C-alpha cells in the first residue's frame, strides 16, 4: 500500500515541479532532452577507475537544481532509493579486484575505486533523468520526441499510459485496501485470489479503454493525434545546449580537478 501511495506522490511531485516557470523550465524541451542525453553519455563514457575527472560533471545537476529552484531532498531521496541495487552489483568489484595502490601512506584497493566510480555515475545519471522530467514535464517531453520524429503512435501511447497511471494506481490501492480488510494479518495476495483480483481489474481496464476510445472519438479522434504547433527554438535555447555540450566536452578531454590540484599543490613544474 505504502508503495502505491509513494509512487503516486512521486508522480504528482514531479508533475508539480514541471509546472514552475524558471529560466530552466522555459528552455525548449528538445534542447533539455539533448543536453541530458549528451550529459549521460559523457558520464558513462569515463572508465571504471576514473573518479577525479568525473567530478566537474557535478556542476550540471547543481546548476539545474539551483536555477530551476527544485527541492533537493525529495529528488535525492529517489536517487538513494535506487542505490541499493547499484551497491549490490558494485560491491562485487572490491571482492573480485584485489589489486591495491598507495595514496599518501593509505592502501586503497582498486575494487573500491571502481565501486565509488559506479556509485557516483549512478547518482549523476539518475539525478539527470529526474531533473529532465522535473523541468520539462511529460507533455514537453512528448513534444520533443515528436520533433525528433518518433512515431506518433508511440508518443500518443506513452502519453496515454502516463495519464492513466494515477487512475489505475488509485484503483489498485482501493482493491488492495478492500482485500486487506477481508484478509487481515496476511502478507500479500493469496494464491487463490491471484487470477480474480488482477483479472477483474483487467476486465475493468478493457471497459475503461473502450470508454476512453469512445470519448476520444466524440472529440474528433481519427487515429491522428493533433498536438498543435511546437514551441519555437530560440537562440537562447541553442546557446543553453551549446554551452553545456562544450562544458561536457572540456571535462571529457581535460582532467579539470587534476589541473586545479596541480595549480594548488605545485606538482607540475
Amino acid at each position, binding site marked *: 500500500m505504502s508503495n502505491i501511495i509513494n509512487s503516486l506522490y512521486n508522480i504528482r511531485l514531479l508533475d508539480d515541479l514541471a509546472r514552475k516557470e524558471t529560466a530552466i523550465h522555459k528552455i525548449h524541451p528538445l534542447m533539455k532532452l539533448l543536453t541530458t542525453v549528451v550529459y549521460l553519455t559523457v558520464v*558513462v563514457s569515463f572508465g571504471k577507475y576514473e573518479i577525479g575527472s568525473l567530478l566537474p560533471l557535478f556542476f550540471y545537476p547543481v546548476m539545474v537544481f539551483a536555477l530551476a529552484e527544485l527541492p533537493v531532498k525529495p529528488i535525492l531521496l529517489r536517487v538513494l532509493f535506487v542505490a541499493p541495487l547499484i551497491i549490490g552489483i558494485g560491491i562485487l568489484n572490491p571482492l573480485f579486484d584485489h589489486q591495491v595502490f598507495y595514496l599518501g601512506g593509505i592502501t586503497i584497493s582498486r575494487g573500491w575505486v571502481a565501486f565509488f566510480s559506479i556509485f557516483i555515475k549512478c547518482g549523476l545519471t539518475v539525478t539527470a533523468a529526474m531533473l529532465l522530467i522535473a523541468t520539462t514535464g511529460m507533455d514537453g517531453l512528448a513534444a520533443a520526441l515528436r520533433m525528433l520524429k518518433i512515431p506518433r503512435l508511440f508518443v500518443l501511447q506513452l502519453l496515454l499510459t502516463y495519464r492513466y497511471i494515477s487512475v489505475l494506481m488509485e484503483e489498485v490501492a482501493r482493491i488492495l485496501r478492500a482485500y486487506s480488510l477481508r484478509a487481515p494479518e496476511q502478507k500479500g495476495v493469496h494464491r487463490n485470489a*491471484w487470477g480474480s483480483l488482477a483479472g477483474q481489474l483487467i476486465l475493468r481496464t478493457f471497459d475503461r479503454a473502450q470508454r476512453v476510445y469512445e470519448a476520444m472519438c466524440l472529440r474528433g479522434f481519427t487515429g491522428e493525434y493533433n498536438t498543435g504547433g511546437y514551441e519555437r527554438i530560440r537562440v537562447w535555447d541553442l546557446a543553453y545546449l551549446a554551452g553545456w555540450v562544450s562544458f561536457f566536452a572540456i571535462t571529457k578531454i581535460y582532467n579539470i580537478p587534476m589541473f586545479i590540484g596541480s595549480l594548488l599543490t605545485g606538482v607540475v613544474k
Partner: protein
Amino acid sequence: MHMADALISPVVGGVMWAATAGVAAYSIKKIQNDLDEKKIPLMGVMGAFIFATQMINFSIPGTGSSGHLGGGLILSALLGPYEGFLTMASILTIQALFFADGGLLALGCNVFNLGFFSCFIAYPLIYKRIIQKGYSTQRIFGAAMLAAIIGLQLGAFGVVLETLFSGKTELPFGPFVALMQPIHLAIGVVEGLVTSAIVAFVWKARPEIIEKASFGVAIGNISIKKVVTGLAIIAIITGGVFSWFASVNSDGLEWSMFKTAGIEELEAPDGIHQTMSAIQSETAFLPDYGFKAPENEQEQGAVEREESWPAVSAGTSVAGLVGGAMTLAMAALAGMIIRLVKRRKKRLAA
C-alpha cells in the same frame, strides 16, 4: 532486472538503443497496417494497468516472500506481441524518468531484455505454439509458465552480456551467470503462475478478449527470421560506428590532446612559463606535496600502458584529491550563490 545507466558503456547503450528502435519501428509499422485505432487507447490503459499491478504483492505459498508481475508476456497474450512490445517500451520509459528504475541510456537494454525476449521469442515460439491447440486451463498454465521462465532466462542472460561488454564491473562471467540465472528462474516461475492465473480468469470471464488477441489479424505471422536478421545488421552497423566514435573521441582524441599539449609546453616561451610557475608557487597552499616532475612522468608512463587506469603516482593522486575536492566545493558554492541571489530577488520583489 533493470539495467542502470551507471553499469553500461556508451557503445553497449547505443547498440541496444538502435536494436530496440529497430524492433519498435517494425512493430509500429505492423500495427499501422492493421489500422485498428481502437487499440491505441487500449495499449495506453493496459500500460497503466501493468504499472499499477506491479505494485501488488503476490504472496508465494510456503515461502513467506512475494513476487510481482513483469508484464511482457501478459501484454502479448492480451494485446498481441507488437502492441505488447510498444506498451512495455512506454512503461519502461516512464519508469526510467519518474522512478529512476533503469535509466535513459540503459532504456534500450531494458526494453530489449524485458520486452523483446518475452514478446518476440517467448510469446510466439512457446506460448502461442502451445495455445494453438485450443484453450484450456492446463494449456494456459503450461504455456504461460514455460514462456515466462524462458523469457526471463533470456532477459537475465541479456543483462549479464550487456554488463560484461560494458566492462564497468569486475564481475567474471561464470559467477555472474550463476548468480543471475537461478534468481530469474524463481522470478520466472512466479511470473508464469501469476500470468496463467490472470489469463485463465479473463478467458473464463470474457473469452473473446483472449481469443481475439491470439487469433486475430493483429497477431499475424511474425517473421522471426526477418526480425533477427534486421537486428543483427543494426547491431553490427551501430556497434561498428559507435566503437569507432568511442575510439576517436576518447583514446584517440585524448592521446592527440596530450601530444599537442606536450609540444606546446616544450615550445612555450620562457616568459609565460615563468609567470605561470610564479602563479603556481603562490597559489600552492600545500607545497609539501610538490613532487618532482620526472618521477611522475616515469611512473605515469608505466601505468598508462594499462588502459583506463589513471595515473596513480603519489604526487598526481594528491593533486587529484585536492583538485577534486576543490571542484566539488566550487560546484556546491555556485549552487548556493544562485539560490541566495534568487531568494534575495524574491524578497526584494515581495
